[in-house]
């Protein structure tokens, strides 16, 4: 096969892009396997050292915080629960509200849709005080419910589901009606299976969104048992200034690597659906 110069250039650009993404992660990973002292004195490392197991073990299990009770493992679990809850509920609620907007032709459907859409302009950070007030009045601070609930409404996902439902031909609904499907079974038997690739894609986005939340959990939680990974990142960085001896650089890298794993796993498991959604339409 003859290779054209254009292809070579294209590949070089792609390879550079890959390196740009992968090298920092590799450096973090390699550095996380050394002694902190080594890194502080010699700089970041490209090769694997011999402290891998020790560093990770320490990061996962060392008790930290003021109460000396919370561990990184617990924070991972918290973040995972929060992201899972946010992603699942966002998808469910968005799919259902889009269903209502598209198929129930009530007069206010369009204004309501735009009202939902406008909330894109008002992210959580902007309305954080009223949100906090409500959650706090409901007595939901320091709970998973409080962490998840204010974030579950999603204009973006509602918009995408709405656009998708609009492309489904009316005959399908009519045919299903004649086959005895009611509103609920049309949603479950038709819209959900038809939009499963869409659901997977939305789930990935929303999971990463939920996982990377920082400000909300920071404000919401006073009990350390509800701390999340991103908050922990801040703690592990500030720790050294308050503290004792050397900054624990190697452990920091280990923590960063660990914190990437859950979202990467979600993407890996759902990417089959995700790509399917991009390349084929099953309509």
């Amino acid at each position, binding site marked *: 096969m003859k290779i054209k110069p254009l292809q070579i250039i294209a590949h070089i650009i792609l390879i550079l892009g890959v390196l740009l993404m992968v090298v920092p992660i590799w450096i973090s990973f390699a550095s996380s396997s050394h002694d902190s002292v080594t890194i502080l004195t010699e700089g970041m490392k490209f090769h694997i050292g011999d402290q891998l197991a020790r560093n990770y073990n320490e990061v996962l299990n060392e008790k930290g915080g003021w109460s000396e009770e919370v561990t990184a493992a617990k924070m991972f679990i918290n973040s995972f629960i929060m992201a899972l809850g946010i992603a699942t509920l966002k998808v469910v609620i968005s799919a259902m509200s889009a269903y209502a907007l598209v198929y129930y032709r009530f007069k206010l459907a369009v204004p309501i849709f735009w009202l939902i859409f406008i909330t894109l302009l008002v992210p959580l950070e902007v309305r954080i005080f009223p949100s906090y007030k409500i959650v706090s009045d409901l007595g939901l601070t320091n709970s998973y419910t409080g962490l998840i609930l204010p974030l579950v409404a999603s204009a973006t996902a509602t918009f995408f589901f709405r656009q998708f439902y609009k492309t489904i031909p009316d005959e*399908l609904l*009519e045919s299903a009606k004649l086959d005895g499907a009611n509103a609920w*079974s049309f949603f479950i038997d038709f819209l959900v299976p038809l939009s499963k690739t869409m659901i997977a894609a939305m789930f990935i986005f929303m999971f990463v969104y939920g996982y990377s939340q920082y400000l909300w959990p920071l404000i919401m939680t006073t009990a350390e048992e509800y701390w999340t990974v991103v908050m922990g990142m801040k703690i592990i960085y500030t720790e050294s200034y308050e503290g004792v001896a050397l900054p624990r650089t190697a452990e920091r890298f280990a923590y960063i690597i660990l914190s990437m794993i859950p979202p990467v796993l979600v993407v890996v498991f759902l990417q089959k659906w995700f790509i399917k959604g991009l390349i084929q339409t*099953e309509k």
Partner: protein
Amino acid sequence: MSFLDLKNVTKIYPNGTKAVHETSLSVEEGEFMVFVGPSGCGKSTLLRMVAGLEDITEGDINLDGKLINEVDPSERDVAMVFQNYALYPHMNVYNNLAYGLKNRGIDKETIEQKVNDAAKLLQISDYLQRKPSMLSGGQRQRVAMGRAIVRNPKIFLFDEPLSNLDAKLRIQMRLEIKKLQQKVGVTSIFVTHDQVEAMTLADRLAVINNGIIEQLGTPIEIYDNPKSLFVAGFIGSPQMNFLDGNIKNKTLSAEGFEIKDIDSDFEGEVKLGIRPEHLSQSENSLINLKVDLVEQLGSDNLVYGQLKDKKDFCYRCPGNLTIEKGADLSLNIENNKYYIFDKSTGKRVN
């Protein structure tokens, strides 16, 4: 009361468009009724009102002795085949057929038996595990029909189901639909804009224009005896020739010729309709045609040309006659088969 009874059914859309005007119609049990008309004439709307997919603005629809105006589509026990088939893309053929039965709470063994019977009847048994996207147009068509048959409904509704198929397949499926309907014996309504489909399928057909049934009858009645200018022009291929004329004292004078002793007391401006196939060449000619173009179909020739007044005209003759371009033909109307319509109202007057 007949099996399906429409009484003064009217449909007005919210934007004020009147799609169907006070239409009354009855369909007997087991009958194959065809609604035919140009697009936008209201034929599909009428069908969809029977199915329950459109609200009825005024009037009553009775099915099997029961008023169904307010009955939910799923409760009407009707089955419909859509123009684009509307197969469920995420289900395999088996589940496409079984879905309606499952919703009715029928047990698994019965469903399996019914689906298999229907699949056998339609020769789709081999594809039961396939998804609709893996089927050809004709197979999809069969699945759509299977989905209708398997429920054993009171009435089949077909909404232009053949229009997405290529010409050859369309003719084949047309035959199959007719055969199937005769075998199953279910009352059917078939909507089409194709007059050949209408003629071949129908026990009776309703020619619809602007939301009104212009004429209702067997295909032959409608072909032989069109009641209005619209029906005469719509049914028959190639189209009937229309000439302007004037009647006075039972004599019709058109451009270049006269017909005496016509069977009508009408006086005034008229349209004279002559079917291309009701003409023949003869010595004592009525019409002189200058030939522009000949289409040879094998069995027939379609001869297109102009009359003296430059009016386009078509004559259909047996395929064994050779007619050259530019020839002058003398034509006569066979057996006085001509139709006269009031020019202002479009009503037949002879």
